[in-house]
């Protein structure tokens, strides 16, 4: 029982982290109809920037304070993400207005390659730590109830809280503001949105920038857990079942989807895995998402797929 609870908790925490990455996908898709495969690369790029600047800045400025170094690095990394967003709009999206989804998707794959190369060129391809003072050691709850207690990581809890806040803010933004409405309009029809004066260019910069900062937050959390290294891009693959399960267009869906996937894959790996030799969690997550899709093709909270003649 204690172990079940622990697995459940572990799943929820992992799920929250997936959600954070999924959020970036959803934001961009919702606001521009682009399925941004570069999200993983953006997480890596942002995390690399954060890791390296937090190392370099104290060196350059001769700072003693780690906190100050981290804060400065955060802002510089955020600045990098802004510049990146701006460049992507300028050089890529602007020229692909009104193109089909797959074309846009491929363009983001192109961006992925580019970022992978660029990130490693500027920041190196070693493993770099991000130390924002997250507590690393475990705490044990209910030690008197279950044998061995229930283990939780403070780090995970902090991450989950941050993710939850981010989501709350972003969903409010999308549902309640006129910019949010405009973003949804853009996703539906680029041209029509242009025709009524929605400035696609500015909107895209904003959205990619927000997604970039989400990526930065995700990158910091993941990076502080795992270290920043090229493999961070693969967390994107973990987030994909989350978004299709939650629905490509739903911010809360990213969270609920994340939790379901997180819990589902941990439970499956821990309880079913040993029967078939283990290592099933990744495909199990996808199959889980797929099964949900069979009942709701638009995901749990996604906008209904419209087909009408």
């Amino acid at each position, binding site marked *: 029982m204690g172990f079940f609870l622990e697995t459940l908790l572990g799943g929820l925490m992992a799920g929250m982290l997936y959600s954070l990455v999924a959020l970036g996908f959803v934001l961009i898709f919702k606001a521009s109809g682009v399925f941004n495969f570069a999200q993983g690369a953006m997480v890596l790029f942002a995390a690399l920037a954060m890791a390296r600047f937090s190392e370099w800045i104290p060196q350059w400025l001769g700072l003693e304070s780690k906190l100050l170094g981290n804060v400065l690095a955060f802002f510089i990394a955020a600045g990098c993400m802004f510049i990146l967003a701006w460049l992507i709009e300028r050089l890529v999206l602007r020229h692909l207005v009104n193109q089909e989804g797959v074309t846009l998707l491929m363009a983001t794959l192109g961006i992925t390659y580019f970022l992978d190369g660029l990130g490693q060129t500027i920041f190196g391809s070693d493993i770099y730590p991000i130390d924002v003072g997250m507590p690393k050691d475990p705490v044990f709850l209910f030690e008197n109830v279950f044998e061995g207690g229930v283990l939780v990581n403070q780090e995970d809890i902090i991450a989950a809280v941050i993710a939850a806040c981010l989501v709350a803010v972003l969903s409010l933004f999308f549902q309640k503001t006129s910019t949010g409405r405009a973003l949804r*309009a853009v996703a539906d029809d680029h041209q029509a949105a*242009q025709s009524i*004066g929605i400035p696609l260019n500015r909107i895209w910069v904003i959205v990619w920038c927000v997604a970039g900062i989400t990526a930065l937050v995700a990158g910091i959390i993941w990076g502080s857990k795992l270290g920043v290294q090229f493999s961070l891009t693969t967390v994107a693959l973990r987030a994909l079942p989350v978004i299709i399960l939650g629905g490509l267009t739903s911010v809360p869906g990213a969270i609920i989807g994340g939790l379901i996937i997180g819990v589902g894959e941990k439970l499956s790996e821990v309880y079913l895995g040993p029967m078939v030799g283990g290592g099933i969690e990744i495909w199990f997550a996808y199959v889980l998402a797929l099964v949900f899709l069979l009942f709701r093709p638009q995901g749990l909270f996604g906008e209904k797929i419209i087909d009408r003649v």
Partner: protein
Amino acid sequence: MSTTPTIVLNVNGIEVIYNHVILVLKGVSLNVPEGKIAAILGGNGAGKTTTLRAISNLLKGERGEVTKGSIELRGERIENLSPADLVNRGVVQVMEGRHCFAHLTIEENLMTGSYTRTDKAEVARNLEKVYNYFPRLKTRRTSQAAYTSGGEQQMCAIGRALMANPSVVLLDEPSMGLAPQIVEEVFEIVKDLNTKEKVTFLLAEQNTNMALKYADYGYIMESGRIVMDGAASDLRNNEDVKEFYLGMGGGERKSFKDVKSYKRRKRWLA
């Protein structure tokens, strides 16, 4: 009206090529005077839509480009402005084929039209005005645009453009798919806005009858060229126009039943 009105829109000899190879407009020039209604008429594929797209700068998304000529709005060259800039300058296009935002409700669709405006109260008033023009929209305000009928979507598209409080409206086939009395209403609305709020209109229309009835000036287009232009009243009385576009050759309206099995083709261009 003896003083010559100022020209808002001046299109000067533009050529448009799609996909780098398909030459569609072959030197089109037209003028739209301030506060007037101008109509572009012409058959399928004549290039009406393309002309409007060229003006509102929506060609890029269709992989088309203006290769020659110039377009001026109140004396300012606008070829390099973004569509959003144009809306800020008061030029709004109602696109052919409706293009409502499928996932947004009718009301949200209309509200996106007011994206460029800041005064909330005024926007609310404007929304009421649109609902007044199209009561049908009000009853469907909460349904997603994709699930409304063709005509409702057309109304929504027109209404949405009006929400931007434009000074120049480019209307592409506003009457398409609308019931007869709605068509009339739409043209009445156009006239109304034109006279009361001095909104300038450039419309592309197939419904020549209606268009010439409400427009001040008409351009007739064929295969990418303007082949005839003149005051609407003149065009209405032109024999050729009468025959080809108004169906009144020989003074009388022919029944659609009798067109059977014979075919005429007379064109200004071979």
